[in-house]
């Protein structure tokens, strides 16, 4: 499950899931939804990413920034994400397609994920939340 939360100038992205990995994946869908409707993006090509950071919060920011980077250099939008965590290491993948301006109606580029409102925690057993504000 993903959602957006309010931030003055920018926008907050939040992913909630049964596991930490699922929360990270959902946060990436929330990131996509800042730009375009995820349901309108087809999964045609998969891109692998790898991130490493000293703690879970920084790893979330790295993961989202890796997606931002792949979107920018490949001119792609992604709709499906897979995350596998091995300690401080994240092995992930993003599946999507080339940006089609007429069909996707992308509203805005995301410049980067920030440390504002950055939280990664298990709110209750089996419910993980991963969130931060992204700069647009």
């Amino acid at each position, binding site marked *: 499950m993903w959602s*957006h939360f*309010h*931030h*003055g*100038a*920018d*926008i907050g992205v939040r992913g909630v899931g049964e596991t930490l990995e699922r929360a990270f994946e959902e946060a990436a869908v929330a990131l996509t939804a*800042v*730009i*375009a409707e995820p349901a309108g993006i087809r999964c045609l090509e998969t891109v692998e990413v790898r991130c490493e*950071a*000293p703690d879970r*919060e*920084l790893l979330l*920011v*790295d993961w989202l*920034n890796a997606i*931002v*980077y792949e*979107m*920018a*250099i490949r*001119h792609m*939008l992604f709709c499906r994400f897979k995350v596998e965590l091995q300690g401080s290491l994240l092995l992930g993948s993003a599946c999507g397609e*080339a*940006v089609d*301006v007429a069909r996707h*109606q*992308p*509203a*805005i*580029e995301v*410049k*980067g*994920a*920030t*440390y*504002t409102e*950055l939280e990664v925690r298990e709110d209750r057993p089996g419910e993980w939340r991963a969130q931060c*504000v992204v*700069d*647009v």
Partner: protein
Amino acid sequence: MKTAALTRVSEFEWRIEPTGNMRVPGVIYATEALIQAMDEKVRDQVVNVACLPGIVSASYAMPDAHWGYGFPIGGVAAFDADQGGVVSAGGVGFDISCGVRCLRTGLRRSDVEPFNERLADALFRRIPVGVGSHGPIRLGGAQMDAMLTGGARWAVEQGWGTRDDLKYIEGQGCIADARTDAVSDRAKKRQRDEMGTLGSGNHYLEVQEVSEIHDRETARVYGLDEHEVVVFIHCGSRGLGHQIGTEYLKTMATSARRHGIELPDRELACAPLRSDTGQAYLGAMRAASNCALANRQIITHLARQVFAELLPEADLTLLYDVSHNTCKLEEHMLDGVIRKLFVHRKGATRAFGPGHPDLPDEYRAVGQPVLIGGSMGTASYVLAGNANPRVPSFASACHGAGRAMSRRQAHKSWQGGRLLKELRERGIIVRSPSLRGVAEEAPQAYKDVDAVVDGAEEAGLARKVAKLRPLVCIKG
């Protein structure tokens, strides 16, 4: 923001007394109405910045301040390297050297109006805009490095503009001491096909009419007259700047403790000016500033091509180019002593007063043009820096209106198509690749730019010279 937590110094100045770990007070310049409309988070962020090592005088917020990340947007803070001062990636922002450029056209509204639709179409076709857009220019290797060290000067050498343009750009179009070795390959890769692109969000190119003159003498010096047409370009350092911001934010956050810095919040990530990290960031940030200056120079060239084809009598000359996301080494007089300080302006515009040596000769008597971009469909302004400002905020003024409503809320509240129709009925032609983007940028989603500019003038930050009304808007 509740005014009860602030000390009112004057009608336009509010002070946060130093408590806890604050090294200096906080100062907010705004009318009571603007203060009341500000998020409480602005106060928290002004306080947090006041806790950083080596901060000088005060942690300032401009009349358009709003909740940012680390620093408030509209935040100004200066640091002294001799006193353990720091440089902060969040204090500059992801869109390094985002700024505004204003061009005179030598045309009057009546010359342009019959061509508005064609002008809008031609500009929209010529200037790459929006998500995933890329230009015809490909940069790599030595060329990329030449751009990162040369800025607008490099762009002019490539044929995109004239040497005269450079006189009217901060730093004469080239920011010194850029370090290409401090810019990662990933940042360079992100920029390889983004030169001459406008970007998205609140970035735009507008054709505007000078609708009001407030200071006739200064307007004359700036070459502005009522009903004349100007071009306003608002954009920054594109993917390169975003990637540099991203990477150094992490480096600074993870190395702060090693540098003996206790961060009140990780989002305030910073490094001592006299550290390898601090020096590398300054070098990379300056390279990104050159990228932004080169980018606005190339877009200027593209706009000139379009005008030459449609309105050959047009002569697009540069009024000024000023950035509002920067950290610059500047000299400022404090307690009768000139000190060299690293001034962070995050969503704030440098506003040098008359007589400043860095100003072009023509403007030295009246002060620096301060360019304030409105949102789509609303006014923009040209202000001028004040002499001996009553306010000591390191010659800084506001930068725009600031959002009043989140993007998602705006997307739910307005329909892009209807907004375009309403704007057209008001004589404003908008071209954008995304109707959702148009809805998110609805004029009503922003604060009243007139109130922000009035607040800046009343606080003595800068004085109003001319008000500009949009005719054509190319929007990301």
